[in-house]
């Protein structure tokens, strides 16, 4: 459990070093610094066993908030309470010395990471086993690879039995096998009632891991809720400009962008060119997009993104990834674009998001980004049954028979 109440953090910024001395000499009667409000009135309650994701642009105040939670910084006002130890998988292996062995480093740094001396001796074998370092556990750290270093750090960090666990991209260093092991461990923690705070730019990961997500923007917590909604809002935010929410049928559509171009119509067509809302897996189809240009635009990029019911990205591409020049458009002209492909994805419900922007990514000038503008279904293919989310179409061969003597 983690409870944050009316949390504020203000940094004092002195234009010159001398200004601080001047202020001391005036005993506060004159002020020589500017105040920078990094976090504004944050209120948040994360329950035990809940995985909470925190997203926000660089400079939104994420790291400051984490530092306040881990107490490496103190708040200007407000409080942060938790029901037990807080472990951060942020800086794995802090305090480790390259000339000491893994074992010595654990023994000398265990207390710094929140382990009592008797716990360290009791747990050192578990730590060694989890890290899977084998003989390297008794070799100096300077002989370690980056991955091994992270494994040692992670093994120590999780051995403290925290009540709150803070996780970030630190995990992305290890190999895929160890990453999975870590994620499993984090899931075990979660089931055991540990509060997980996950901070990452990897939105797919946030979606998979988190029950709720908070969006931090310019020091304020602007949205807290279901991952999909908050992450769509975050996406809209990083593409810049105004965000408005329009309702199109039963779908909530989040639209953002400069408005130089806007999506006039979009439809999903089958191979006969008829509008459909459902397709069979593997069926040939076309996504037809009409774009109205409000300003002169040269070579816009048109992109599609298909997401599944949980909001995970299934497939996305755009005209510049596909090496297409779209040409010049005058104001008040309409462009017709279409993507043709076989819907080689597994049965389920999907949403389609569209983007029109200046460069290969929507982080350049974004004309319009429309989230979940279309909902469609994919039905199982009766002639080609398969499991899973992708329709890979392998071949199958049978080798010659051999008779065992």
């Amino acid at each position, binding site marked *: 459990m983690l409870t944050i109440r009316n949390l504020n953090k203000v*940094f*004092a910024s002195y234009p010159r*070093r001398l200004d*601080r*001395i001047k202020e001391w000499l005036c005993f506060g009667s004159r002020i020589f610094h500017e105040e920078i409000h990094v976090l504004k009135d944050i209120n948040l309650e994360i329950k035990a066993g809940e995985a909470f994701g925190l997203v926000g642009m660089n400079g939104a105040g994420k790291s400051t908030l984490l*530092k306040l939670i*881990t*107490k*490496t*910084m*103190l708040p*200007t006002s407000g409080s942060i309470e938790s029901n037990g130890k*807080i472990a*951060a998988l*942020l*800086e794995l292996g*802090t*305090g480790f*010395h390259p*000339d*000491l062995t893994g074992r*010595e480093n654990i023994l*000398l*740094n265990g*207390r*710094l*990471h929140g382990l009592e*001396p008797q716990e360290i001796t009791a747990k050192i074998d578990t730590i060694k086993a989890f890290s899977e370092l084998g003989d390297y556990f008794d070799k100096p750290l300077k002989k370690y690879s980056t991955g091994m270093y992270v494994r040692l750090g992670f093994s120590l960090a999780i051995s403290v039995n925290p009540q709150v666990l803070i996780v970030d991209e630190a995990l992305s260093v290890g190999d895929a096998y160890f990453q999975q092991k870590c994620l499993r461990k984090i899931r075990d923690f979660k089931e055991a009632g540990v509060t997980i705070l996950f901070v990452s730019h990897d939105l797919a990961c946030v979606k998979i891991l988190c029950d709720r997500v908070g969006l931090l923007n310019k020091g304020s917590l602007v949205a807290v809720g279901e991952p999909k909604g908050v992450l769509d809002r975050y996406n809209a935010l990083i593409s810049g400009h105004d965000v408005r929410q329009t309702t199109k049928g039963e779908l909530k559509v989040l639209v953002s962008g400069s408005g130089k171009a806007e999506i006039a119509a979009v439809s999903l067509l089958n191979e006969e060119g008829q509008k459909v809302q459902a397709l069979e897996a593997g069926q040939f189809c076309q996504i037809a997009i009409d774009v109205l240009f409000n300003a002169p635009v040269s070579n816009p990029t048109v992109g599609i993104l298909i997401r599944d019911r949980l909001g995970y990205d299934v497939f996305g591409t755009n005209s510049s990834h596909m090496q297409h020049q779209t040409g010049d458009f005058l104001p008040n002209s309409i462009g017709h674009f279409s993507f043709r492909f076989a819907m080689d994805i597994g049965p389920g419900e999907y949403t389609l998001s569209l983007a029109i922007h200046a460069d290969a990514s929507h982080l350049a000038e974004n004309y319009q980004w429309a989230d979940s503008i279309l909902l469609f279904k994919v039905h199982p293919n009766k002639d080609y049954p398969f499991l899973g989310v992708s329709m890979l179409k392998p071949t199958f061969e049978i080798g010659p028979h051999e008779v065992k003597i």
Partner: protein
Amino acid sequence: MFLAQPLKATYDVTTTVIKNFGMLLDFIRRDFRTRYVGSMLGGYWFFIHPIALILIYSVIFSSVMRVRFPQDLTEHAFGFTIFLCAGILPWTAFSEMLSRTTSIFRDQANLIKKVYFPSEILIFVATGSVAITFSISLFILFVFFLIIGHPLSSALFYLPLLILLQMLFASGLGMALAVLNVFFSDISQMLGIALQVWFWGTPIVYRLAQLPESVQFLVKLNPFFYFTSLYQDILFSRLAPSWQNLATCAGVSLAFFCLGASMLEHFKIQLLDEI
């Protein structure tokens, strides 16, 4: 009352140190463990350094330069060496304590920024670890005394108390300087120069009586003078320390400790922001 805040700060810092004594020892252990790691002689260096220092002084001042000072210094062939060591070993420890504490928050910024722990204990890690090497060098000095035939006396039992007071003094002043050094790194540069001046302003290579009387009062304003004269009483003259001097040392140490603790507590939030 205006003393309430400093007293509370002193109490807070003291309890933090007591509560986290185990971690403090871990840090000191780590400091010792890593200092000579990778060297051939390893831990022997802790002994080699003071031995070398004492040998150099004794060769220079008893054979090469044959310094002649007032009669009590020359009674013994090694008289000046003993006098010098009695003053210079504590001074070296004191100046090392100060320079290490002053820059400790900057040196350990990576640790302080990344993991939560009561960072004030780092001050005591620095002074404590120097106090241990200082004790080793005193031990070497006793061995040297036995070899050259300078008898040890029961006054030596006052040394632990004196070292403790010196630690308190250095920790207090060090805390104040360390706080300032986080905001202005010029402090540790200035300290280098200040320590030179301070060294020559303390009767370590000379005696107070050798100074003109008009200047002597200045030396008496120097708090470390009282420490030096106690060390000289104990190690050189083999006298039990005067209670007056001991009380002065204790008073100075406590006052500086109060000052340092107050500054640390007062700037706690800004300190962590700035590191």
